[in-house]
């Protein structure tokens, strides 16, 4: 997993609540058996005016000029500003894959859906929860200031406005922070506890043997 320490970039505002993972990456792109290549189809139904299918040449498709990420001022954005309950719906990890493939490494919102929130950390994507008023304020500033950039410092747990140096601290669970900073492999860490897992299995097999027969 790619490490995350400090990120500086343009912030793009996606001003709607309850953005679901079907909207982040529509189902036809879930037919891929790879983890990469989803970026061009991030928010496909909002971003393009035609219907997208896997295998299309996205560079020739008609762009929806009203969609926020299609505005020049947000080109190359690395931070996504979002509203409540971002990432609700399906468990598809294709959603964080598409966001990172597009170039986002950080999402700031007042709240996230549980499975999506969890999936982000597995892919080097940092979801930051801030109180609603702070998010409102960021939306304000982003919309007023073309090129509005933020520096997200995970080590120090703070977001700094590049223009004026104002600081917003944020909370993050210590384990998740460490895993992002080090780019840790969860499976490797768990396998280091293989003995404990075997001990558990042995005990459980006595208590509830039916849990260990087929499938």
């Amino acid at each position, binding site marked *: 997993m790619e490490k995350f320490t400090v990120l500086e970039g343009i912030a793009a505002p996606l001003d709607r609540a309850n953005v679901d993972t079907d909207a982040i990456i529509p189902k036809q792109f879930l037919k891929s058996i790879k983890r990469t290549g989803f970026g061009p189809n991030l928010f496909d139904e909002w971003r393009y005016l035609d219907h997208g299918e896997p295998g299309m040449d996205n560079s020739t498709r008609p762009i929806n000029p009203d969609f926020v990420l299609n505005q020049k001022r947000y080109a190359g954005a690395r931070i996504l500003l979002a509203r409540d309950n971002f990432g609700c719906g399906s468990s598809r990890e294709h959603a964080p894959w598409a966001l990172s493939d597009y170039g986002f490494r950080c999402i700031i919102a007042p709240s996230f859906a549980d499975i999506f929130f969890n999936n982000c950390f597995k892919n080097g994507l940092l979801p930051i929860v801030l109180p609603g008023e702070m998010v409102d304020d960021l939306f304000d500033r982003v919309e007023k200031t073309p090129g509005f950039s933020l520096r997200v410092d995970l080590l120090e747990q703070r977001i700094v406005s590049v223009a004026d140096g104002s600081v917003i601290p944020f909370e993050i669970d210590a384990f998740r922070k460490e895993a992002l900073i080090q780019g840790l492999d969860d499976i490797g860490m768990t396998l280091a506890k293989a003995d404990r897992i075997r001990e558990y299995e042995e005990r459980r097999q006595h208590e509830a043997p039916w849990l260990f*027969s087929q499938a």
Partner: protein
Amino acid sequence: MSGKTLYDKLWDQHLVHDDPNGTSLIYIDRHLVHEVTSPQAFEGLHIAGRKPWRTDSMLAVPDHNVPTTVDSADIDDPVSRLQIQTLDQNCNHFGVMQFGMSDPRQGIVHVIGPEQGLTLPGMTIVCGDSHTSTHGAFGALAFGIGTSEVEHVMATQCLISRKSKNMRVRVEGELKPGVTAKDVVLAIIGEIGTAGGTGYAIEFSGPVIESLSMEGRMTVCNMTIEAGARAGMIRPDQKTIDYLEGRPYTPKGEMWERAVASWRELESDADAVFDAEIVIDGGEIRPQVTWGTSPEMVVSLGESVPDPDAEPDPIKQEGMRRALDYMGLEPGTPIDSVSLDLIFIGSCTNSRIEDLREAAEIARGRKVSGTVKQALVVPGSGLVKRQAESEGLHRIFIDAGFEWRNPGCSMCLAMNADRLKPQERCASTSNRNFEGRQGQGGRTHLVSPAMAAAAAIAGHFADPASL
């Protein structure tokens, strides 16, 4: 010290290790796998040279991409076909049991687990699919995970997890005739909102929940994720035990007796404390219809499409406007005057035998309205289909003008060929009415099977009890 909730007990029984860093290692008893969220996980195992920890905990089944037209022997779409072939290859390579496309037991993964007795009370059950919450109906701790976690469970049989908070939703009283489990869960979501359960594991209880069949309980738990909670559960009782007894993979003989004895202890203690508690009067629930693009945008039959101007919160107001625009609806329109182009009876929410019986009861001796372009009935599994046919339900549907299909996810998310065209309006028994969910530009109204059948006959939403 106060007592434990059902969720606390399930958690404690599966706790392998509490790490000082605040995470816990949780043991997973059953891992269900489908073709969409597993290829990258299997690939991860390959690349790292790892093997599944316990293949006997796994069952794989293709469901999302499979065609449901009765005459389609193979899949036309090469991308879909490759995904299904990849599942085949991975299962063969790693020795994972699979109910392949031609297996009579094939169907939607959440229908199959319980049907085969692979879903049991007291288990932890995961699947790379958010509707894994369905299995909580059996008193299991069941929840959806992402593909990285699918790989993690394959490799270690465990998940790194954090305990959720406890919420109890009690549904009191008694349901009115024509009101079903689907209406109950839609009413709950309407009450607490799509993020109301975020961070919680929900236990459903109360006389209404107890009165539901296992199929009805699965419908309720299925949509827990639509209320934001990853896991929903109901304590196992005699109905649970009767449903499971004799199924292919349930324990047998003395093992069955031991298992049942342990399941009888799976309930929240009387003095257990919940972090949040919701009480709903079941007698007040009427048949539900969603009007917008989120499951919380729901009204009772007899009510009208709401007016965004009456909503004080500006963000919600904007969301409502967008939803009305997408759905092509005007505020104030009585919901029962809305006419439908398509009807879809299926999905892991409502494709079990009882759902089909409920819909067939309404369709019996009647005809699908001439204004409805297509009405699909897609059984949840090959065995549900067979059972329905042995009861003659397929005849009722076909005679009424419904199409009788093969099992799969079908128009729930339109990954196969079954989908809405832009602006087509569908009464659907599935679980998500998100923009584009059933096809780009398609408009989904979530309803119960009885309501879907009534809408098919009337051509618009209608009270199933009045037909």
